[in-house]
């Protein structure tokens, strides 16, 4: 079957097997390996991408179901050579160690901050519950999310 999607602003159309998972479509067909496979059961969140702006675990979505949608992956966060504030936050606050969960964390955070520009620590912890990190114990990730939120609020204010 054929699927047509827009990934990081670029439209593409591919002939695929019906059963192909979206995460494998992104990684194997579109060659975007920034999105990771951590559990294949939507429990770890390493495969999180944005579909039409909403965080979705791409390991339990068929590529076929993505027909016509807009997908953003970690590769699509950098704009005009500048890091996204969420990326900046994770770098500044040591929000990653091995980096494997990070793309999913970044996409989840992007979604969270689009809905809630000033989340409390409790709200951030709750939002992160679908994304596992084994390295950081989450505290630096929470700091990273807060950094990004601050930065995005300031940018909005000055705009």
């Amino acid at each position, binding site marked *: 079957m054929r699927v047509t999607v827009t990934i990081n602003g670029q439209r593409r159309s591919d002939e695929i097997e019906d059963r192909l998972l979206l995460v494998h479509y992104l990684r194997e067909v579109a060659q975007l390996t920034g999105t990771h496979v951590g559990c294949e059961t939507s429990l770890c969140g390493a495969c999180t991408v944005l579909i039409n702006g909403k965080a979705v675990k791409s390991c339990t979505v068929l590529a076929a179901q993505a027909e016509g949608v807009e997908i953003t992956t970690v590769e699509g966060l950098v704009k005009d050579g500048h890091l996204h504030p969420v990326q900046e936050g994770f770098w500044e606050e040591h929000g*990653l160690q091995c980096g494997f969960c990070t*793309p999913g964390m970044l996409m989840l955070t992007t979604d969270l901050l689009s809905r809630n520009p000033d989340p409390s620590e409790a709200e951030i912890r709750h939002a992160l519950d*679908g994304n596992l990190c084994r390295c950081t114990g989450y505290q630096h990730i929470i700091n990273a999310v807060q950094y990004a939120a601050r930065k995005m609020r300031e940018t909005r204010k000055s705009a």
Partner: protein
Amino acid sequence: MAAGIVPKFVGSRVKRREDPRLISGNGTYVDDIKLPGMLAAVMLRSPYGHAKINSIDVEAAKKLPGVVAVLTGEDIRGKLPTLITAAPAQNVPYHPALAQDRVRFVGEAVAVAVAIDQYTAQDALDLIEVDYDPLPVITDPEKALEADAPVIHEQFGNNISTRAEVKSGEIDRAMREADRIIKFRLVNQRLAPVPMEPRGAVAQWNPGSEYLTLWSSTQGPHLLRSYLAEVLKLPEHRMRVIAPEVGGGFGCKLNVYAEEVMTAYLAMLLNKPVKWIERRRENLATTTHGRDLITYIEAPVKNDGTILGLKARFICDMGAYLQLLTPMVPGFAGMMMTGCYKVPAMAFEQLMVFTNKMAPDAYRGAGRPEACFIAERTMDMIALELNLDPAEIRRKNFIPKEAFPAQIASGLIYDSGDYEPALDLALKHIDYPKVRAEQAEGRKHGRYIGIGICSYVEICGIGPSPMLPPSMKGGGWESATIRMEPDSKVTVLTGVSPHGQGQETSFAQLVADELGIGIDDVTVVHGDTAIVQYGTGTFGSRGTSVGGAALMMAVQKLQAKMKKIASTMMEVPPDQLTFNNGTIAMASDLTKSIPLQRVVDASYGHKHPIPGIEPGLNEAGFYEPTACTFPFGTHACVVEVDADTGVVKFLRYVAVDDCGRIINPLLVEGQVHGGIAQGIAQALYEEVIYDENGQLLTATLMDYAVPKAEMLPHYELDSTVTPSPINPLGVKGVGEAGTIGSTPCVVSGVLDALKPFGIKNLDMPLKPEKIWRAIQAARKA
């Protein structure tokens, strides 16, 4: 660095140089590697805990379009030898990469299908018919010792792999002279390391040059190369092992796995690149587990709380086969079980037992969390029995500051330590007297607050080579090469293999300060045996204390050579020169200097040959530590138990750690946070469960409770700094400290909260249901 020059980078919160690629999707993990014509391998795994294999029919699988090969244990019999254990054991079973005749744990690989892609290989597995005869299963290591227990490896006659005893000091006298002997049983439950990146390997064989390249998600690429060379009968110089980006290890990626051997073997057999990627279910079933140690403890004490000795019997669950270091881990637990305390005599007996389970091996802490749990639960038990304050009982028994370097009963020598300030600081942070008063007040109103304390000491920086088993490849040493390139930028090759720890940053900090250059002028390369000289790898919190020390040796050699060159150019004796801000300068007058680049030109350039000095700026260091380092600290927590639900809530979590000199506080915090999270996970949440049929009940992340953000507290950190005299950096290691200190701390806190119910001990994990049942039972009694 000359006196008076302030370090620019060491000691600063320098953000990581690893991160830009990792936050932009540009990291390359094993699964991201794609080679032309690459095939996918998928393993068929045993659904039985113990069974006889009557036959395996692979014909239908082989006929499936896209399938290239299907192999079973019979196909490798006599061609691939047993997998290796490096640690000494009395009974070492034959361990084939694919099961032969019998399967002995759920998940054991029985066949491998290789196809054009993973989906097709997976389809092929469904067409393989295995005829099994189930055999009696044994999963409880204590029952496995009983006379009528099913025997897992018939050649040994019983299920004992190894029986060993260590005795030191006058333990019998201590037992006689004690006012009382405190006896209890402790269980360190079985855990799964669960790095977020499962394991994986890609192998490529070049038949023309007879050269094998293997990418693997490993913590020790050189060790892996050495072991693979032995198993595959290939010389090491015709093998290149690359650890690309590695998505977490925590000890479980140090092992040499059946799948790594099979991936390499298949690439050679089929003359095609082969990729094997572990799925999460496989990760939980077949990546080495951790802990699984039952301990019977006897502590002879005086009525004033003085501990006279410590005696323990260990029942160590080894699983079905011994992996690389499986038999070594419990030994560390025994050697360190006397903790921070003056314990003049000790004895422990280890019984290592086979069961129908996956083998445990190194997991963050590897023996020291077990040791610390024994020491700290013992202190709490003494406090409870004698009605003494748990903080004061620790203080009373601490090895005093004046005793360092201190030889403990097991023979180990603690390098440096000062335990009281860390305890005091932790107590101050939680406001100990005040929180004890709140606890007392709360108890009057049915509010159950608990205060947990854990003073830990651990062993790091392994270490002098004799600390490692004689048959282990590599050594306790570590290596580094430093090269100043013709443009005066620096390349560092390190023998350690970081996978999240951040040495690309911390090592660059060290080098930049030593050479008076910018941190962006240094690139740290690791994890590729064709680029980096032999190294032992990253485990046991040794990366900085051993790898960093090796780097310092190489740096000093480079500095000496460059000073010698500068000396001839400046006509100043080398010992009066120092590195400063891109120059080599007179230490007494930094304005009298020449740019580094001129020294580099003189070394590499054909215009400025300096008689008697070799061209080039490339120096290596191999550092063998004279001893291990012993980081320590005190963790304290305040928890509240809801007596109606059994739920544990954190009110405070304070960690005071002493890891010696700190190179990058930001990275140290990250290590401590992550360690605490994993330690809390053992105390409250995680447990690998096999049922009596050997079925793994925790085979997905739905069932195995890796903590989520909401399940963990906000950590408050502080530190004391007691430099190690062992290595030139004064560092001790911090990768595992958090894991070691937090588990006993949290258990101590929860049991303190439950004290009014008369509950003295509960086995981890302290899940709400377990706590609730204990409270119900106590209320009925």
